[in-house]
């Protein structure tokens, strides 16, 4: 069971307070109609699913109800940090958006 630091509440909290929000930074295409079926299918279904570092969202369900970003290692369950959505985007981009 994880302990997450909620960047909004500013406290470490137990995993039971949170819900998983899926892989982070999958922006919705601005003009879905211009995408072919393959590209739209990628947006709908394809996820990185890495063994290693993964940028993902969690929602502080029983607390502030905010979605935020966690960088977690799926192999070791180590957590590198948690950020608000906008700060997380900056940290993610600073890594080149890579895994």
């Amino acid at each position, binding site marked *: 069971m994880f302990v997450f630091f909620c960047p*909004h509440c*500013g406290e470490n909290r137990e995993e*039971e*307070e949170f819900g998983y929000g899926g892989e982070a930074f999958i922006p919705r295409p601005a003009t879905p109609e211009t995408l072919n079926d393959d590209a739209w299918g990628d947006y709908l279904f394809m996820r990185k699913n890495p063994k290693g570092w993964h940028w993902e969202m969690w929602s502080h369900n*029983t*607390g502030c*109800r905010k979605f935020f970003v966690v960088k977690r290692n799926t192999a070791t369950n180590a957590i590198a940090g948690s950020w608000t959505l906008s700060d997380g985007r900056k940290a993610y981009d600073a890594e080149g958006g890579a895994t």
Partner: protein
Amino acid sequence: MSEPVMRSPLHSFGLASQAKPIDGSSGVWANEIPHIGYISLRGDGRDQAFVSAASKALGIPLPIEPCTLATSESVKVLWLSPDEWMIVSAPGQANALCSRLELALAGVRNQVVDNSGGYTQIFLGGTHALDVLRHVSVYDFESLQPGRVAGTTLGKSSVYAFRQGNGYRLIVRRSFADYIWRYLVRAANPYGLGIADVPVDNLVGTSTASVNVAAG
């Protein structure tokens, strides 16, 4: 037509008639504090216009420090998130307070919702109150300081909790109140549970005079 009568979520337990002054006969004391006003306030805590207008309408500075609460003579304001607060007010005051807030916040991004029917409050005290909280919630209640509020789990439900005097106040959703009360009763079983007579002047939790709820 009969006069409108309010019924609190824990009405069916008949707690009021069982209440007695807190003493050393039980390790845990609890009761429902019914019919309090609850307003959900949304707005951007970084927006100075919103914060000052809301503070003015409430009569106290809106708490913008995470997980804190502010208390005045008439209201208690709980920080729930960077853009959400819960305003706890005396019975019957919520409507007028809503109007005052809406008026003050006109022109600013906001939401004011009277949610008084949606919540109720449970008082929890006694020498073993902390033990009971350890049984029912994953949160580290030992670390909860006066003036702070925690949104966390209670069994498989959720709660907003803060300290008041030497006890705790738990704000819970109406439809879960029955489950939560039963859960608390079962968790308190090892320590003995007394139904507490909570002083009237302390209903909202705004009184500055704290009651000694951890007798014994």
